[in-house]
């Protein structure tokens, strides 16, 4: 007796369906990938983190309008300039020399080829900083635990593109993915302080950032810069609010880890002078 191919097909489909209904509840526990809300997480699993670094680098490439060393240009692997800029660093003439990875042309092919390449070190400006955002968005989607993506993206949206609400939303997304991140909390505090002019909220967030920093043993050991940044900002906030003793306390805390404690001492002295002037002002007034 010869079985019809259609009957065999129906039989196979039925077996497949039955197996699928049986296996599916177990299969869903094998991996968290299918449960993810993130399409990249579902497609690539943990492999997506490899792409995240590349996309973050692309943001830096765009920030330099294409003037960027390749893997063959042996340049020291330092901090990316978009990260440095988000920490308030601007290029000095020494930095400019360091970033001239091309050097002098090595031969006529190299010399002539440079007429077609980008050979000038520039940074995006006048609102064109928006062009780095797609890469930061992709980097955040690929690796939600890469904290720099949120802080850098938020910094550029807030300071260069005048979009504090989008910046806040991006930081909040980062905070949902990294609830213990003191870096994101610090950036959120800057947003409230500098963009929203809300010192009360900024103070709360920075104090929380400091608490999170103190609870992270790795940060306490290696990331003293973060502690200095948070305490200096808190000190400046208190000085602006006229809370002199608190401001001095924060500056003194920052002094313990600062590479330049004398500069902070000068600020402390300035506050003390102002305090003294205020104390003496009523007695010095003429009758």
């Amino acid at each position, binding site marked *: 007796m010869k079985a019809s191919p259609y009957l065999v097909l129906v039989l196979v489909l039925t077996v497949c369906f039955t197996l699928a209904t049986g296996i599916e509840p177990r299969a869903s526990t094998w991996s968290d990938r299918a449960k993810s809300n993130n399409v990249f997480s579902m497609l690539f699993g943990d492999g997506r983190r490899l792409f995240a670094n590349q996309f973050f680098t692309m943001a830096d490439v*765009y920030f330099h309008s*294409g003037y960027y060393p390749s893997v063959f240009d042996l340049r020291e692997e330092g901090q990316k300039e978009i990260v440095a800029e988000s920490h308030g660093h601007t290029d000095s003439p020494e930095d400019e020399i360091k970033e001239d990875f091309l050097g002098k042309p090595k031969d006529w*092919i190299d010399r002539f080829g440079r007429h*077609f390449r980008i050979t000038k070190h520039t940074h995006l400006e006048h609102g064109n900083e*928006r062009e780095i955002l*797609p890469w930061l968005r992709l980097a955040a989607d690929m690796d939600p635990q890469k904290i720099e993506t949120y802080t850098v993206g938020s910094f550029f949206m807030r300071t260069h*593109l005048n*979009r504090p609400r989008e910046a806040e939303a991006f930081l909040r997304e980062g905070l949902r993915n990294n609830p213990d991140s003191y870096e994101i909390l610090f950036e959120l505090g800057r947003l409230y302080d500098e963009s929203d002019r809300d010192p009360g909220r900024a103070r709360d967030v920075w104090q929380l950032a400091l608490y999170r920093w103190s609870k992270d043993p790795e940060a306490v050991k290696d990331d003293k810069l973060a502690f200095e940044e948070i305490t200096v900002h808190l000190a400046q906030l208190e000085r602006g609010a006229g809370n002199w003793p608190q401001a001095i306390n924060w500056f003194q805390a920052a002094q313990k880890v600062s590479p330049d404690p004398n500069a902070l001492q000068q600020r402390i002295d300035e506050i003390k002078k102002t305090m003294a002037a205020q104390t003496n002002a009523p007695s010095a007034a003429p009758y």
Partner: protein
Amino acid sequence: MNTIWALAGVVIKELYRRKDFYVLFVLTALITIAAGMVNFFHDPKIVRYVKDICLLLIWVSALLIAIITTARQIPAERESRTIFPLLAKPVTRWQFILGKFLGCWLATGMALLVFYVFFAIITGSREQNWPWLTYLQAIWLQWAMLAVVIALSLCGSIISAAPSSTTTICFIAVAGILLVGGHLNTVALHQSQPLQTIFYTIYFLIPHLEWFDLRDRVVYDWGLVDWLDCVLATLYAAAYTGLFLLLTWLGFRRKSLNT
């Protein structure tokens, strides 16, 4: 010259009868439009990533069209034995090679033109800016680069009988030159002898196709390259194209046509 044009005309007709170009164009258009529709932080002015993606696809598509179209020309004529009546007519082997080259180059140029018109429409509609001269330089230099690639593929098709192997080898060679060619001198500096000499020899021998890649200048709005540099680069491409065509002719003139 009429013979060469007639041969070239047949190649051009072949390009628009085959599906390669249409498939690649539709794929490029779909990916570019999809990328352009993505909303990043509610900012409609972000455009450079779309330009970047679109130009990358144009470069890959143009290379594929050029190499695949060229690599199958001579093997297909030999396979179908149409080369015998063709060469029985007053057509020399040199004319045959030139006709095939010209046909492939013009066909690729037409494809390139369509791709760039699409690119200009997509990016222009988004940033309201039409730097035509920059586009003209980019397309011209890319086309000049493709002349070298086509001549190289034609030369490869004389050596290798199978179009697939010619296509693969040429694509690897061209991609290698584009990605690594310009850095071989830097790599050579850090090698010991005899590797250093080998790297330098390769560096000075290969055609530097990476010069013709103006994508970064278009994407980042760096403006025009000096026209004199464009002319010199064109002459450089013409020299390498001539060299590869000569090598093709030298290999083809005494080659047995029986498969």
